[in-house]
């Protein structure tokens, strides 16, 4: 039953293509679809190139060299993951604006004229590529770092013995060896970029997601919005397949390698400083710049926590906590059933697909599903569209994969012999779950819970559409305040979102370090 609830919204979206095409669709097809497609292609291509350069180069430096600040950068390079792209977009817009901090600093340094502009308009596709690039490169950094660490020391040493220097070894050997990891990381970034709504909306770039939103809320044409969603979904699933196929190759490469005891090369003076700056730039632009600017904006607001923000924060906590508890409970239950009754892991894979569905599309699918249910419920004088249920369902579908990854690996670390012992001691399935699995999985459950909360707190598109009337969350407040150009007021809730986003960073860092050991 849970599988059907997870899949029905997606089936509703896909079924829209069989319901005929309206005039709005033909209008979009003739006038806007090409623009949406080209913008999306430019965006994905530019972001992919930028994240590859940033992610692979920094991972290579911190894996194979010792330089000033390396210990800090090893974990700090993941920090930008805590910053949702829409927040960096808001900061960039203000920071590089005519009267923004960047232009003011340079004007004070180089000229007395107040009308000189040092930075071009940032609200362009290039600006969006920079925003996505600097917030999403950690995906490529993480997979590349783990893959670099798994290259056997003997392979790198053999390359040196054959007369290759570090640069030749990097391009001729290391990059080809970790290519599947890079492709997997870039595919994830491409999916995130295509699924984003907040940043492209703020930069006013017509893409598929903004098109879907406008078609629905502007033209009030849900079916055409669903048809556009189907097209985007198709592209997302292509990237998902690429990511999965590459991931299986990473496993293969890892399984044949031995432990890595490669001794990093010590970089001196100029080279050490160069490595330091190469690593500093992405961390500074992707994390410290937005955080400092948001702190700066917050300090200029008289009332930091207004009643509205306090309400939004409590709504965020309430909805995220409820959804996180439910998600972890469902993931625990399904993993337990899969383990105990020998059901195929395919069920878990199927349920985990939800993370790849953009929040906006999921929201459209859930609305369609709920309106259909309401058509039947109306006889009983009730309806569920616009209730908190839709938002909770969207959150569960979006975050199931995260809790599943954590709980599945935690559960797999419990020897099956323990289950069998409990059975021979007369324990029922319920007792096995309650008295053995749950106590042992305590840490895993807490980890999954925190990771889900961190993910949900920054979620914007699904929340924006599915939230009940007069129910704002932190991300929605930031979005609404930013869309009214009230950036200073948006700063504090933005900082809270970043603070919660640091939780998964902590766990990811621990994961990479344990892999290193």
């Amino acid at each position, binding site marked *: 039953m849970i599988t059907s609830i997870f899949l029905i919204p997606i089936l509703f979206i896909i079924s829209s293509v069989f319901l005929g095409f309206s005039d709005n669709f033909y209008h979009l097809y003739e006038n806007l679809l090409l623009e949406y497609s080209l913008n999306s292609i430019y965006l994905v291509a530019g972001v992919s190139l930028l994240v590859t350069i940033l992610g692979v180069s920094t991972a290579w430096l911190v894996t194979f060299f010792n330089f000033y600040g390396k210990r800090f950068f090893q974990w700090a390079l993941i920090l930008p993951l805590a910053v949702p792209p829409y927040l960096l977009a808001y900061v960039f817009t203000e920071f590089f604006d005519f009267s923004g901090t960047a232009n003011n600093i340079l004007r004070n340094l180089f000229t007395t004229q107040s009308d000189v502009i040092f930075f071009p308009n940032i609200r362009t596709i290039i600006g969006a590529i920079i925003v996505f690039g600097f917030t999403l490169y950690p995906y490529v950094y993480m997979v590349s770092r783990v893959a670099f660490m798994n290259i056997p020391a003997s392979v790198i040493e053999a390359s040196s013995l054959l007369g290759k220097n570090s640069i030749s070894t990097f391009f001729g050997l290391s990059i080809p060896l970790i290519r599947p990891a890079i492709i997997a990381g870039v595919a994830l970034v491409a999916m995130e970029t295509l699924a984003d709504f907040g940043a492209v909306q703020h930069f006013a770039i017509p893409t598929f997601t903004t098109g879907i939103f406008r078609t629905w809320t502007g033209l009030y044409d849900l079916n055409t919005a669903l048809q556009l969603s189907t097209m985007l979904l198709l592209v997302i699933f292509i990237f998902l397949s690429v990511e999965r196929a590459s991931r299986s190759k990473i496993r293969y490469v890892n399984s044949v390698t031995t432990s890595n005891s490669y001794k990093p090369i010590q970089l001196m003076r100029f080279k050490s400083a160069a490595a330091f700056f190469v690593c500093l730039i992405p961390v500074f632009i992707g994390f410290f710049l937005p955080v400092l600017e948001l702190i700066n904006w917050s300090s200029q607001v008289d009332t930091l926590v207004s009643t509205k923000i306090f309400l939004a924060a409590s709504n965020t906590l309430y909805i995220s906590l409820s959804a996180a508890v439910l998600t972890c409970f469902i993931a625990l239950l399904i993993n337990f059933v899969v383990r105990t009754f020998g059901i195929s892991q395919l069920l878990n894979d199927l349920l985990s697909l939800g993370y790849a569905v953009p929040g906006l599309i999921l929201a459209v699918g859930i609305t369609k599903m709920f309106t259909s249910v309401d058509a039947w419920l109306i006889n009983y004088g009730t309806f569920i569209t616009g209730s908190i249920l839709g938002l909770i369902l969207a959150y569960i579908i979006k975050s199931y994969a995260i809790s599943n990854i954590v709980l599945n690996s935690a559960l797999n670390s419990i*020897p099956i*012999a*323990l289950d*069998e*012992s*409990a*059975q*021979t*001691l*007369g*324990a*029922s399935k319920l007792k096995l779950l309650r*008295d*053995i699995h749950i*106590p*042992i999985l305590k840490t895993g459950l807490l980890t999954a819970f925190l990771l889900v909360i961190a993910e949900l707190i920054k979620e914007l598109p699904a929340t924006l559409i599915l939230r009940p009337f007069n129910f704002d969350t932190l991300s929605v407040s930031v979005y609404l305040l930013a869309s009214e150009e009230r950036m200073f007021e948006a700063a504090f809730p933005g900082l809270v979102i970043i603070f919660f986003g640091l939780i998964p960073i902590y766990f990811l860092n621990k994961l990479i370090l344990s892999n290193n050991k």
Partner: protein
Amino acid sequence: MKEFLKVKNINLSFDSKEILKGLNLIIDEGNFVAITGASGSGKTSLLRVICGLESPSQGEIILDNSLLFSRDISVPTEKRNIGLVIQEKVLFPHLSAIQNIEFGISSKKDKQNLSGEIMERLNITQLAEMYPHELSGGESQRVALARSVVMRPKLLMLDEPFTGLDKDLKQKIYPEIKSILRASKITALMVTHDLNEVKALADKCFNLESGQLTEL
């Protein structure tokens, strides 16, 4: 003596490889039977079939006149009242020794009486509050044994339970186990490849080869 465990014409295959072929075994009440055999001969599989962790493709298992398995019936493991002690560390890591021993007992009164009694007899009272990671190999095995025996199983099965223990400790444990099983009138079936263990503990011994048992 009463025929207590009857295993009749059992067949078991994994991926088209036949492990047990029409295997038959009868154990009298209160007896201690040992099974030896080469690695991979199916000794552990036989124990897993008897306690219901594996399902054979054919055959019958009867314990104390109750049908546990046939073509139409398969009693779930947790309802067979068969204890199993294996070589692996299978104490629940989050429970202390005494909590492990009391795990299968449902009544509160029984918990205190039975666990105290068995711990005293196995000389492990001092380990009660310790957790599995604080116990040595021998201590863990004795707690695991106590956990199974305290349930007063109709049949206790031991799968190479003493592997990894040093010789002196084994010599100390053998008589303890024998006396406890005798006193509790528990029928036991042990799988081992150590003939010293067979001599010290078993009333009867079988060899498992080509999926069938022959008495030694």
